[in-house]
């Protein structure tokens, strides 16, 4: 890619990642949430890959790490749901609800948002990576 694209990417990619994390963490207060934020996080890595090539992005998150993190995200979500059994029911929101419109509120909903954000973020990146690797092996073979 050209110098302009690389420079702009270097400037913006951190901001995009940060914005994704913001969307995930404020999912219970404003529009967005785990899925939307996760997609933005994944797009920041995809952006990096488009500008600097596959190797730079894989150096940040290898495909093995991505698939492990994806499983961990899913298990975390299941764990949050199972936490409800402490209060007697599956998916029961037993943590303190807090004051509305504050960051630390809404019980286990932010936790599940974080779990979904991890899963979607690395999952989407892993899908993109798999398609790229598939394409690359085809060209070589």
């Amino acid at each position: 890619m050209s110098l302009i694209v690389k420079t702009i990417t270097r400037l913006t990619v951190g901001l995009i990642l940060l914005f994704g994390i913001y969307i995930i963490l404020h999912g219970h207060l404003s529009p967005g949430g785990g899925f939307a934020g996760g997609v933005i996080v994944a797009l920041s890595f995809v952006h990096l890959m488009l500008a600097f090539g596959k190797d730079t992005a894989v150096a940040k998150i290898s495909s093995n790490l991505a698939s492990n993190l994806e499983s961990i995200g899913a298990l975390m979500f299941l764990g949050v749901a199972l936490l409800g059994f402490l209060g007697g029911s599956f998916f029961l929101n037993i943590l303190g609800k807090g004051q509305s419109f504050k960051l630390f509120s809404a019980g286990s909903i932010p936790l599940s948002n974080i779990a979904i954000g991890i899963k979607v973020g690395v999952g989407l990146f892993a899908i993109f990576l798999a398609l790229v690797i598939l394409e690359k092996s085809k060209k070589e073979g």
Partner: protein
Amino acid sequence: MVNIIPFFVIIPLGTAFLISLLGKYVRHFAGIAISLSSAVVLALSISCAVYLSSTADKILVYKIGGWVPPFGISLVLDGLSIFMLVMVSLVSFFVAVYSLSYMERYTDKPKFFTLFSLMVCGMNGIIITGDLFNLFVFLEIASIASYALVAFGTEAEELEASFKYAIMGSVASCFIFIGIAFLYGFTSTLNMADIARVLSVKHSSYVLPFVGTLFLMGFGLKAALVPFHAWLADAHPSAPASISAMLSGILIKTLGVYALIRVFFSIIGSTQAYLSVLMFLGTASLLVAVILALSQWDLKRLLAYHSISQIGYVVLGIGLGTPLGILGGLFHLFNHSIFKSLLFLNSGAIDYCLGTRDLKETSGLAKIMPVTAKTNLIASMSIAGIPPFNGFFSKLIIIFACIQSGHLGYGLCAVIGSILTLASFMKVQKYAFLGRLKDKFKNIKEVPAAMRLSMLALAFICVFGGIMLLMPFRVFLDDAVQAVLRGTHYSSVVFEAVGK
């Protein structure tokens, strides 16, 4: 006891992601985890069945997150659900044990078992859910896992079959989704019991037939009824044999037949028009598919066509709408899941040892593979309806039910279909197991112990399946029939159970 219900989804889901996380690092973890989890699910489902048959109203409702329906998602376990649940966990347990050895030939066992477990999770979810959109989500989980599993070998034929299956399956899902959207727009609720309650007081002459047609197209395609059957004959033979057994044995029944029964009997309410359509489609499938099966030389393709045909029997029995017909249909559903998965496991065993499943290549396998040959003989006689085996009783009940309700033509078609099935399985016996053994196959040994064990267990159920009609086990079938016949009273029963 009611707290067990969500674990039918939690255990397979947790196992799937644990395997994908740890399977790469710990040897044999995948195999141990999958056998353990499917054994636990089997034990839980049987204990639930025993408990449920001892209760008075035969229904358990679980409120997720403590939210009362219709506001929250509820899980409903009634007679029909537990019947399907026991069937699914029984077959998936034996198939999981079989896959431990069979999948040695493929690379990447952990990925296989992850997808397998996700598919079981989706099917269990469809069966226990009491929410229409939740049903759609679980249906998609099971479908996507099955698309990936069909393509698991990544050879040319498998990819082609999987692509075809994925496109047609997604179109079916679109129809189901639009049906759900219309129902939501009409009733403003998604809980199945609540939809049934609203529909009983709010009438419309054009929404319900339209929604019914959409659901019939969607679920009919998933069940591979005859005008929608084109994908099955490609997809099921292309998958690994254990997955063919899962797909033919239980997936088409859960995604297709169970969902059809739930939607048409419990939610929309079964009018005579729907029942006539179901009967006609069932008869068409059982005749067309068995005629197509006669000319097949690929063993698995032949079995796949027979799956369509046997689903036709099930739908014919259920479409009759009489207690006897539904009993026959559900009993045949159970029997077919046992013997068809056994037949596919047999074909997998032949493929495993010989590397081919073309009936023109094989002959005389009875000498070198005695267990496969004997279990295959039992399963063939079951599917063809020879007296002491389980398939005979269910087909007999369906034919009796046809005659009892005055549909002599349909009864005759069922008899003809049964005779043609017998003919095509005599062909399998003759070309695969009888005759002279070819020299190049002289040194082949019988399959490993895990595969033999699960084939023998399924054959055992085939032989003694008939006792399901006798008294202590009869309760199990009768509860399922009662749950279907209850029709749209489903809603009042569910709300009563919630109130307690």
